[in-house]
């Protein structure tokens, strides 16, 4: 297991290096000049050039790439072109709220999705199934933006149960994570449903029933544990999706997270921040993949890693 982990982690290094090249090329290929954006709309060309020199954007690309790699490796990450603030500090400040939000959203949506999915699968073709799946389809098709404002309108303004936005206390997590998780819950429900329907047809479920087990145990223990195997892969994918989806939710709920930082960095072509954040997302994606694979091993004894 340790060996496996070490091998997997080592294998990430070349991948990250490739990603660094892509990220750098991508960031520099998109049209837009950070000096111009940072200098502002009313700046004269002289102002823009002053900014360019001050930010060392006049250096050759190769030097800029090496600076980027050096900064990434040393975790220094450089400074934001726009604010001059340490990128490390910016990301460190924003990562917490974003991951917390993503985990909360994932938490409820997975539990809820599994529950609805199993219920729908068990009552496949009946009313409970139809209700569950209609809810799921609405969940998938409802834009986060719209749902977020709707929840805010209802819970914050109509009922006054929660603050509209911002992150000052744990209860502030509720509305944004509800919003963010709705799509995932729907996907999980649909996916779990089909996984369970598939698994319930398996021979070992017949065996479980032939043992005389109560249906509750047959479904929630025997079927669900097996249905989880594909579902876990889905959870991994969805986590990446959540981080992406949080951009909208962060905007609506004034959430001080990575999404807002990235959007603003892109808007101002703040290369240092975009690059660092894209690397962070890539690393996170690789780690989640690894985590999913390890989880897989726990759920599916046929794939235990040595």
């Amino acid at each position, binding site marked *: 297991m340790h060996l496996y982990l070490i091998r997997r982690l080592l294998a990430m290094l070349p991948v990250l290096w490739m990603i660094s090249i892509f990220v750098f090329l991508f960031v520099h290929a998109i049209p837009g000049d950070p000096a111009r954006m940072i200098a502002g709309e009313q700046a004269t060309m002289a102002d823009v050039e002053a900014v360019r020199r001050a930010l060392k954007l006049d250096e050759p690309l190769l030097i800029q790439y090496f600076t980027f790699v050096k900064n990434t490796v040393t975790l220094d990450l450089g400074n934001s072109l726009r604010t001059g603030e340490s990128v490390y500090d910016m990301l460190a400040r924003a990562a917490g709220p974003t991951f917390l939000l993503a985990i909360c959203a994932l938490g409820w949506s997975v539990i809820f999705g599994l529950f609805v999915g199993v219920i729908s699968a068990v009552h496949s073709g009946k009313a409970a199934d139809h209700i569950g799946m209609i809810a799921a389809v609405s969940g998938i098709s409802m834009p986060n933006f719209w749902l977020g404002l709707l929840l805010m309108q209802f819970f914050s303004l109509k009922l006054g149960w929660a603050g509209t936005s911002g992150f000052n206390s744990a209860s502030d997590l509720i509305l944004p994570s509800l919003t963010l998780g709705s799509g995932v819950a729907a996907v999980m429900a649909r996916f779990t449903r089909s996984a369970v329907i598939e698994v319930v047809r398996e021979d070992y479920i017949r065996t479980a029933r032939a043992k005389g*087990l109560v249906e509750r145990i047959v479904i929630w223990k025997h079927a669900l544990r097996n249905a989880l195997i594909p579902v876990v892969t889905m959870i991994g994918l969805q986590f990446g999706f959540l981080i992406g989806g949080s951009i909208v939710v962060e905007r609506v709920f004034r959430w001080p997270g990575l999404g807002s930082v990235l959007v603003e960095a892109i808007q101002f072509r703040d290369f240092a921040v975009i690059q660092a954040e894209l690397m962070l997302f890539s690393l996170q994606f690789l780690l989640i993949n690894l985590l999913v694979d390890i989880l897989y091993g726990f759920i599916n*004894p046929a794939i235990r890693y040595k």
Partner: protein
Amino acid sequence: MSNESELGAQDLLLNIKDLKVSFANGTVQAVRGIDLNVAPGETVAVVGESGSGKSVTALSLMRLVEFGGGSIDSGEILFRQRNNEICDIAALGDSAAREMRGNDIAMIFQEPMTSLNPVFRIGDQIVEAIVTHQKHSVADARAIALEMLETVRIPDAASIMARYPHQLSGGMRQRVMIALALSCRPQLLIADEPTTALDVTIQAQILRLIRELQDRTGMAVLFITHDMGVVAEVADRVVVMYHGEKVEEGAVEDVFSAPQHPYTKALLTAVPRLGAMNGTDHPAPFSKVSTTETEPAESKAIAVPVVDYDAEPVLSVRGLTTRFDLPEGLLGRVRKRVHAVEKLDLDIWPSETLGIVGESGCGKSTTGRSLLRLVNSHFDEMRFDGQVINDFDKESLMRLRREIQFIFQDPYASLNPRLTVGFSICEPMLLHKLETRKNAFDRAVWLLEQVGLSADHARRYPHAFSGGQRQRVAIARALSTNPKLIIADEAVSALDVSIQAQVINLMMELQQKFGLSYLFISHDMAVVERISHRVGVMFLGQIVERGTRRQVFENPKHSYTQRLMAAAPIPDPMQRNKDRAQITGEIPSPIRGINNPPHILTYRDLGQGHQVALE
């Protein structure tokens, strides 16, 4: 109460009266009024082919049929419980039915590979069954589970408790299933095709185990099977089912010696019997018997091809070796590899059938795949149709894949469900640019007619065909490129015996018509005996004995060949108690350390091509 008096009077354990079961809201009648009795300690075999309703009957007894979308429409299933009370299983409430399942009646299934939950430990799965029905602590239940595993003769049972199903072989899993079924000491064990998916040697072990356990516990067994060989081995009484109805019932000796119903007769005729070919040199088709009284027996004689052994072999291979590396560790270093095929020599003559028999994992399927380079393999020499093939460039590989075709065990998996079978048959011709689109379709129709189907089948999709028809389609597709050699990998193993006989007859007919050669790979000794001119017995990647069919089957010299033949069930209840040599234990593994290559066998020549590996 009348129920009680009836059961009591007859001293029966189970009495099924006019059971009717249907599916899809009554639109499909699966069981059309069955009467069936089982006495305590008795073994009753229910025989029939797929769709005959035998499994549905078994599932109805367990009240499991509802979970598959079926429903018991009418009839009674009277069962004597441990406390001697009689209940009607068909009328039990859901929870009472559940309490009965696994406790009074237990069941084992056809697929040991998939019948155990892959994510739970063996021990836990048995313990779960025990604590569900009996007031035992988990610790006590574990002790019982361990005892049950020992009872079914699982070696090192204590460590097996902590294993997961995928770590066990099929035979071991079926033993676990039996231990699971017996863990609550049921009065009736329903065994639904429990050995069909197993190798003959393992099958023999399992059948013997069930018999012994039955002797020890006095439980009754309802044995569901399509295999008359198995019936002859185990049953006291036989019930023959056909299209959801019971067509014959009787003591096992009577049914085998004097079958009454035409279907029973046909079934018995279609059973490949090992040794049925004794005294003959050539393969022979099954004689055809109609399955119903109205249907006339097919009379068309099938000529058996004669092989000219003076001619050049169509395929000649020397030193075929296929190994799979098993990388491990941080750097993926190879320390072990699977020696699937080792230094194998093969010759197949035109119009000849070479049978390869052996147990799972012996390398027989890999041999077939290696010939078409579907897996990476090594040859010392390969000649095909008079040409030496030493490098597999794209062109010669294309030619090889045109001239050699495959038929697999599962035709459904090898036909694209989204293409019409006509198109599936056309595909190889178009791929190899043998025909234009229009001509290809005409030829597809012609081929379908050759395999006993009709032109209008060409426009249908695979799901509209039965298993036998699909295998015919697969054969038609294999023929589409006019191949010289067809590799049939367990091509008839999944088919019902009567269908199996028809397909084998068809293959022989086509062999005669087109001058085909077959490499016939199978685990079924009797089938191989029927169809082969020559036979190779394979064990751990090497041939241990080869020769003409007659040499190998009538005069087996290698001990492995002998054990294999002894293990094959004999469809004759009179021979049941003959003490035969048993292969005990597991099939050995072809995985070896990298520095420990297998010993290459040397052969003793017994003359006329009969070679036996030195032991």
